[in-house]
């Protein structure tokens, strides 16, 4: 008869082997492959030469031999544009969701369930379909322009589609549920008596918000921001549908390198940069969490 200890080891082995194989081979290995590819030389007709090659990063960050590879500031510009776009998306969703989360938190439990359901419902609907709707709204002959024209507010159609504005609107729209849920978790758990105590002690509404409510709900604000920021940085679907040439983001650049330019090493280098940004944000977030966990 096997002793309880060896039985336990056997079960543990059985439970963990599938996940180890799956994530080891099809997750960690591909990530490693990207990093390796980013330091290899692109082949002439697609493919790759097994030779150490640092110009992929040179093209991006400003060192290049000027012969085979040329430093193009545009890549760096697109990277920075993508970062600022992601940050803009975070701020926009935050400002949009915060008041609504507060409003829902003050409803009766029954209505809370209804409105939370309404917020999550679009999440279950196809992403492409939702973006397509915005294409219909924002295009020159679309709903927005015809409404504004009809009301006489503008005299000629606004050029919103295929601009960065369109990308920010679309991105904020698809990211709302991701911001909303962590925010609501924090705001919903906020002890109402804290706000009452603050106004009882003489603080006005604005003071109460900045001195009590915002600090108390900070975990939700930060959690939601991280959850929205990460998929926003490398997103290529939203810029692809709504952004056009003016709204090109780093995600589109990666996609081009793989599916049209066929420069896989350069595309890998761009991906490594996205990965680095995301890991950096996660690292800051996790250390913050750990520090807070220790403090409390």
């Amino acid at each position: 008869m096997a002793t309880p200890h060896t039985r336990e080891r056997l079960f543990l082995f059985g439970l963990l082997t599938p996940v180890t194989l799956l994530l080891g081979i099809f997750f960690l290995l591909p990530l490693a492959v990207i990093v390796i590819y980013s330091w290899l030389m692109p082949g002439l007709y697609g493919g790759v030469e097994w030779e150490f090659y640092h110009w992929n990063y040179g093209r991006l960050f400003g060192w290049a031999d000027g012969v085979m590879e040329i430093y193009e500031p545009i890549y760096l510009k697109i990277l920075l544009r993508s970062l600022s776009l992601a940050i803009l998306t975070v701020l926009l969703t935050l400002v949009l969701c915060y008041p609504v989360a507060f409003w829902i938190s003050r409803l009766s439990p029954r209505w809370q369930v209804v409105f939370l359901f309404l917020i999550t419902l679009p999440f279950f609907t196809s992403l492409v379909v939702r973006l397509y709707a915005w294409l219909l709204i924002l295009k020159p002959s679309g709903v927005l322009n015809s409404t504004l024209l009809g009301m006489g507010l503008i005299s000629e159609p606004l050029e919103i589609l295929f601009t960065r504005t369109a990308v920010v609107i679309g991105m904020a729209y698809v990211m709302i549920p991701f911001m909303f849920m962590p925010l609501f978790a924090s705001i919903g758990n906020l002890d109402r008596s804290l706000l009452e105590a603050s106004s009882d002690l003489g603080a006005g509404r604005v003071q109460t918000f900045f001195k009590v409510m915002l600090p108390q709900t900070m975990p939700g604000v930060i959690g939601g921001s991280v959850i929205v920021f990460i998929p926003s940085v490398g997103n290529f679907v939203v810029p692809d549908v709504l952004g056009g040439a003016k709204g090109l983001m780093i995600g589109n650049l990666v996609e081009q390198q793989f599916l049209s330019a066929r420069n896989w090493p350069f595309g890998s280098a761009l991906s490594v940069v996205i990965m680095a940004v995301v890991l950096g944000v996660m690292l800051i977030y996790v250390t913050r969490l750990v520090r807070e966990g220790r403090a409390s």
Partner: protein
Amino acid sequence: MTQILEVRGARRVFKTPEGGTVAALDGVDLDVGQNEFVTLLGPSGCGKTTLLRSISGFEQLDSGALMLEGKDIGRMPAFRRPVNTVFQSYALFSHMTVERNVAYSLEVAGASKQEQKILAGEALEMVGLSGTGSRMPSQLSGGQRQRVALARAIVARPKLLLLDEPLSALDRRLRQKMQIELKALQSELGIAFVFVTHDQEEALTMSDRIVVMRGGQIEQCGAPRDIFRKPRTKFVAEFIGDTNLFETTIECVHGGRILALTREGTKIWLSEETKLAKGDAATVVIRPTDLQVQDAHSSCGFRGKITRVIYLGTDLHYYVQPAVGGQELLVVSRTDGSRRAPGDEVTLTYRPERAHVVEDC
């Protein structure tokens, strides 16, 4: 009496989060007789739960032997041991009806549906829950769930029933009722019970034998009366019941009589066998119920002044500051006697055989 369970030299060491180690069981020997109600009593962290979990098989001993009816069960997985447990949280399966919960051990043993139904019905009847079999656990009150947990643990007639603080979630009145019922159930079933609690009153009410544990070791083991009257150590004396403690030096030992002196010079007479000799330090225990409040002019006893009187229905608690100084003493007396007020000068008397020397540690 034949022993059903024998524990020999049980040791179990845990790692602490800080990297140290702590011995939850540090050489425990324990015998449980057929049809005996044994209570493991002690503060949290004393090892009582670890001992119980080792018997049920949820913890493995690092060393030591575990014998059930003379057979070594130490390496046997929990599901093979003919021992059942009533859990503190009851651990009822919320996805099954009460009846299926109770019949669970029969079901996994492969008993027929009919047999399951009959035996589960009997067990439910035994705990006073006939007719609730088709309900879900969530539809029952706390006390009823407790009974279901009990029925589930006895339905297969284990050799030994382990109870891990099963009454701690109930309110006081219900707990007292269950204590009596548990005791009755135990004699009806004729199964040995090992009961874990940190509630000394519970231990005194139900047990044939109390095992007081501390720091992974057995501090004292005996009948409730012995534990209460003759605590071996200061720890046991303080853990069970209220206590007045006196740090003394032995003044003289003569026959069965001992004279001890407190630091303040109060004389305490004792009447018991002892190995102590003149000049030894000794801690003396007198229970609050063994002190009597007398008028101030009575001859021998502790003189003092009442500082507080607390009325507790049937009992009165007097706090008395000894005239010679030292710690306040507690006296418990019946309310039907004469009432005294704070500030009254009194003398506290006692019978020498009710004073008792305990070991210091």
